[in-house]
């Protein structure tokens, strides 16, 4: 008996994992395949999204155009000009309506945050 070297440990671990991969039973292989197909099917349903995004982008642009037109032409000249805060709110509303980011974008951000967070050291 002796203490293994680092290289021996690495080689033995590689060998162990190769053997474990080969030793996967048929049920495990079938379950892995099913999991893979499920993941790929999930992608297909996600790929349909760009057309909806485009449509919602056009819709948002239309709403913004109407809103901008209403604000520009619809404000009677004899009424007082909106105060600074009201103008800011109106601009913020327009920005929100004009954004082309889908709600999924914000869900995705959670994922990227999750992936980027450094786990605690153990």
């Amino acid at each position, binding site marked *: *008996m*002796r*203490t*293994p070297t*680092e290289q*021996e*440990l*690495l080689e*033995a*671990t*590689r*060998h*162990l*994992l190769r*053997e*474990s*991969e080969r030793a*996967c039973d048929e049920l*495990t*292989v079938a*379950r*892995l*395949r099913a*999991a*893979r197909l*499920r*993941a*790929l099917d*999930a*992608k*297909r349903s*996600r*790929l349909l999204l760009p057309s909806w995004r485009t449509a919602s982008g056009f819709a948002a642009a239309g709403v913004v155009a109407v809103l901008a037109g209403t604000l520009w032409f619809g404000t009677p000249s004899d009424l007082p000009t909106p105060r600074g805060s009201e103008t800011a709110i109106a601009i913020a509303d327009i920005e929100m309506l004009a954004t082309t980011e889908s709600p999924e974008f914000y869900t*995705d951000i959670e*994922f*990227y945050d*999750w*992936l*980027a*967070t*450094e*786990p605690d*050291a*153990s």
Partner: protein
Amino acid sequence: MTPIQSTARIEFAGLVTRRSTLDSKQALDRFLAGVERRAFVMARIATRNADEAMDIVQDAMLRLVQYYGTRDDSEWAPLFHRILQRCIYDWYRRTRVRNRWRHWFTWDEETEADPLENQPDPAAVDPADSSATHQTLTALNAAVGHLPARQQQAFLLRACEGLDVEQTARAMGCSVGSVKTHYSRAVHALRERLKDHWQ
């Protein structure tokens, strides 16, 4: 451009999009088929439970496809490692919290020990096999399985995937210095544990 030409152009664009989607799906399928067993084995070593490992691999595959399926295929491998390691780490964290609660409500001597030690190891080699190589590999398997989570991740990523320190750091989502520390501690612990088993 006549309306017919315009329609034909749109249909052609649609066909090209469908074709590239199909190609991308096939490429992803090939990639995942190539890494799924290795990922499963790594997750099983970490969890010592085949069902938990299967859930982790499925989750990692789903996340890769959903969030990075459209990326260049050369990026998939490092991203998949990153997601897989993150999923494994989340599993550790959930298990730790669950065990803490279990410990709180069911106070007995057995909960003092690592509960994972009591789980059957599906990757274990038959103990009846008396060959020296198998004994060594069995000991190695157990020793790697008992490493702390981050040490185990650092060691397996470097040993099995052949990642260098920087790639391992990216996959684990930590600094190069942390990887060096985890890896060095893992090697030290393994050498200590295996000195009585190594032929």
